[in-house]
Structure formats: structure tokens, C-alpha cells
């Protein structure tokens, strides 16, 4: 049950591949798990009007965002047969090519993790008040809009 308690999802800066690797390793003791699924959101170096995005600076209405992440977690545990779930989102600057969102779901069986992961990521994009400012190489910026 401890995995279901509310906790802060936000991490300052990019989510490192070491952190992701360690998260996977920690689950080796949970031997009822038969399937993991992972989503990694990566900052894209979009080219807009001949200018390249070099980083995204994330801010959030943190109190509401953490409450929404909690609701999404609860809904996912309700809907799918999950053993555990971890969500991490960056705040602050994340450079192009770095990871800004890490969603990790585990279950005894594969079907639940395929469905749960898509549900969770789509819910995050739609319901969590996080704002991305795309920084270009000349230090100008524009505000990111999710499709």
C-alpha cells in the first residue's frame, strides 16, 4: 500500500538515466511482478521559424499538480491490476535530449501495464497544471502547447 500514498512527483532538472536504471533495479525484489512498462518524455529540439529549441523550462502550480497526480494514481490503481506505479516530472530547465517525464508501471501481467501507461500519460498531459517554456538558442522563448 505504501506506493499509493501521495508524494511529490517533481524533481528539479532532468531525470537521469541512472535514476531510471536504479528505479528498475529496485523492483527486482518484488517478485509478484511479471511486467513493467515505462514512458520517458524527452525534450525535442523543435525548429520553429529557423530557431532551434535548446531547452524547456518547466513551472507548475505545484499544490494542484500534486493533487492531480494523486488523483491520476488512484484512478489508475482502480482501473488496472497494478502492483506499483511511479511518476516523476521535471521542474526547472531540461535540455533538448534530456528526460522530463518518467512514468513506470508494474503488474503481474503485460496487458495491464500497456493500458495503464497510456491512460496515465494522457491524463497527465490533460489535467496537470505544468507549463513549459521553450528556450531557443538565441535565448528568446515561446510557451509550449500540448497537442
Amino acid at each position: 500500500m505504501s506506493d499509493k500514498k501521495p508524494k511529490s512527483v517533481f524533481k528539479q532538472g532532468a531525470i537521469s538515466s541512472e535514476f531510471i536504471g536504479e528505479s528498475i533495479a529496485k523492483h527486482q525484489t518484488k517478485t509478484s511482478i511479471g511486467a513493467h512498462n515505462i514512458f520517458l518524455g524527452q525534450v525535442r529540439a523543435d525548429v520553429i521559424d529557423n530557431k532551434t529549441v535548446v531547452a524547456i523550462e518547466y513551472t507548475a502550480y505545484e499544490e494542484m499538480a500534486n493533487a492531480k497526480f494523486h488523483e491520476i494514481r488512484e484512478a489508475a490503481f482502480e482501473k488496472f491490476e497494478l502492483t506499483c506505479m511511479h511518476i516523476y516530472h521535471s521542474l526547472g530547465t531540461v535540455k533538448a535530449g534530456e528526460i522530463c517525464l518518467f512514468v513506470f508501471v508494474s503488474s503481474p501481467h503485460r496487458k495491464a501495464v500497456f493500458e495503464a501507461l497510456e491512460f496515465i500519460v494522457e491524463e497527465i498531459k490533460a489535467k496537470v497544471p505544468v507549463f513549459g517554456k521553450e528556450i531557443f538558442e538565441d535565448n528568446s522563448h515561446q510557451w509550449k502547447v500540448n497537442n
Partner: protein
Amino acid sequence: MKVKIKYFGMLSEVTNCEEETIDFSESHISELLEKLCIKYPNLRNKDFQVAQNQELVSFDTELSSNELVLLPPFSGG
């Protein structure tokens, strides 16, 4: 009463601040927004939602908190 208004993302560039306190005596959020749009005319052209008590509410809701949060389109992930 005094209402604290918070602005996130691009909205804080329109208002040039992340939060401020405003005197407000009417009852509906729409009336408060009208007041803000007079103060910041560029706010009228912006797409935003409002939250009170950490929940999104419609503009015709009564103000039930002394804090109102203006949120531009979400772009997490």
C-alpha cells in the same frame, strides 16, 4: 475582501507579476476577471482557465476562496 491572484506561465508575462492582492467586493469570478482584464487588456486575448481550492471552476462560479489562480493551457510531459 482581499483576494490573492496567482498567474502562471505566459500569463505572468502579461501581468508582469506572479501574484498580487486585489480588493474585490462582488461575488462572481467573472466579475473579478473583468476587473483584471481592465487592468491588463492583453489578458482578454489569452486562453486560460481558473482554479480555486486547487480545482478548475467555470467563470460564472462564485468566489469562495481568498485565492484565485489563473492557468494558461497545460503543457507538461
